[in-house]
């Protein structure tokens, strides 16, 4: 066998191993979900018409996840801009703090939130006195969702801002724009796709949250908690349609992200 033939064979062998390994991982990720949808997708869809608790749970999940994503965007956008644009003391510390919710187990996050916002804490007692009950309410669900998903928004938004050349804003300033107008006319539109994508990921993460919510607000039930509740109380057959409905709900952000990526424009010149 000649040397070039040996090299070609090695390349073929490497490509074959890579293809098999990639296929195994992709099948492992896709097959359980596909199987779930095939097994219970139709049932889940039909349950939407007959199961009032499931409908309420889906609506609650969508509303609380949207509220959490909006809160993350409102508070996270200035922070992301600061992290992307300004070099200041403590920036590394803030980045590390933002990693904490992603690193700790989510039931632990739920316990921490319960300690911080529960009636036993000064803040929880104060909020309760002001008429704001956190534990066991939609506010608690939003708090849990916000805690676990906000770092994803900040990270995505920071990347979106970092991709916009800061000199473009500088040019706008020399063309007469004060800082806020230059941000609104230049940086914000150029980062918009990235910010929306970060919001969609945040929303999807909030929808899929279970561990922190189940500690802080078991009731009213979001879909992930309802699915767990039905599994525990009635077995797999009752949990399947709920789980399938949750999968169908998560297709919305997946589709939105695909659409955003397909229409992506360059952010520099």
């Amino acid at each position, binding site marked *: 066998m000649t040397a070039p033939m040996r090299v070609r064979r090695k390349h073929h062998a490497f490509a074959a191993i890579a293809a098999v390994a990639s296929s195994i991982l992709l099948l492992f990720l896709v097959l359980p979900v596909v199987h779930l949808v095939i097994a219970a997708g139709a049932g889940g869809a039909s349950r939407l018409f007959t199961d009032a608790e499931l409908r309420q749970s889906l609506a609650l999940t969508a509303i609380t996840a949207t509220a959490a994503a909006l809160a993350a965007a409102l508070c996270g956008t200035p922070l992301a801009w600061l992290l992307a644009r300004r070099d200041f003391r403590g920036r590394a510390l803030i980045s590390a703090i933002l990693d904490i919710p992603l690193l700790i187990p989510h039931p632990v996050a739920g316990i921490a939130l319960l300690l911080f916002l529960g009636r036993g804490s000064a803040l929880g007692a104060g909020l309760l006195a002001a008429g704001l009950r956190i534990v066991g309410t939609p506010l608690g669900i939003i708090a849990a969702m916000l805690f676990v998903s906000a770092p994803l928004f900040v990270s995505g938004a920071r990347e979106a801002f970092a991709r916009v050349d800061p*000199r473009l804003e500088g*040019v706008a*300033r*020399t*063309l007469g724009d*004060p800082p806020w107008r230059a941000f609104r006319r230049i940086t914000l539109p150029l980062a918009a796709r990235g910010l929306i994508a970060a919001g969609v990921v945040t929303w999807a993460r909030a929808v899929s949250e279970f561990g922190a919510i189940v500690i802080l607000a078991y009731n009213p039930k979001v879909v992930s908690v309802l699915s767990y509740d039905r599994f525990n109380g009635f077995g797999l057959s009752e949990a399947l349609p709920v789980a399938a409905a949750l999968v169908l709900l998560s297709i919305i952000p997946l589709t939105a992200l695909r659409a955003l990526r397909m229409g992506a424009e*360059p952010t*520099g*010149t």
Partner: protein
Amino acid sequence: MILATKLGARVGAFALTNISFHVPSAAYGVVIGPTGSGKTTLLEAIAGLVPATSGMLELSGHNATDDSPDVRDVGLVYQLGLLFPHLSVEANIRYGSADPAVADDVARRFGVHELFGRRVQSLSGGQRQLVALARALARRPGILLLDEPFSALDPARRAAARRELRAIHREWGLTTLHVTHDFAEAGSLGDVAILLDGGRVLQSGRPADVFRQPKSSYVAEFLGAENVFAGEIIAGGDGAVFRSGPLRLNVAGAPPAGPCNAIVRADEIVITRAAPAASSARNHFSGRVSDIESAGATWRVTIDADGAKLVAAMTTWSADELALSVRDTAHFTFKATAVHLC
């Protein structure tokens, strides 16, 4: 008018230090310097995009050191154009313009009005530079800052753009500061030349003075002076002589004795095949031609004379007439006033 007095600014580890120069009202200043010398940072500091850390900056007669960029009345054009990618060419040009007629006029003068409907991503590098220039001018600023604005243009369009810019500069009385690597551009455009290196101004003044009378051998070499010698004045006063090894140069004036550098520009040296008859020129050298090279429209001839290499310039016409070859003997003559000491 731009008046910088001991201006300092910092970007990361790079610092502009003690920057002082003056571009009078309606004058055209050129900034020359090697890559990394701080030219772009200087423009950004004048535009207010990089804050001053020390010193003072006066723009159009008032202290603008702490003014924000939007109130400085300064237009800035980056080398890459930096057009807003989400806006059309027309929207870019009209971005800061209060008067649509000025935007239209400027766009027409630089030939970019026909690109109005185009997306900026579809433009060539040269077109982007012209649109960026039109965008800065459409606001009719009091001061225009240009960072190599013609570098992506072909020679014909560059010449046309330069002419148009010069015309607008004259018509509007527009104070301009233009960064360039091109010495010819600096010489043809500038009323004031500022030579920058390592974040410091090495020399500033009329381009002719900076080119003819560089303040140091470094400046001379950077500006392309071919004959730079380190040595000393051995006989001060009238009839002074500069010595560098075996080389002796007669110099004008009455410089004091002591170490210095001598600079002779190649285009101040006359080349002849035969020894020149008696003339007023005080310096005459004969030697064998060691090199002849083309430098565009001129030729550079090097001779070994008195142990030193001397370079002289001649036109292609002269080169044809003299028909010099390597190893021929040539005579170089120049006046004592052509020897600049620094």
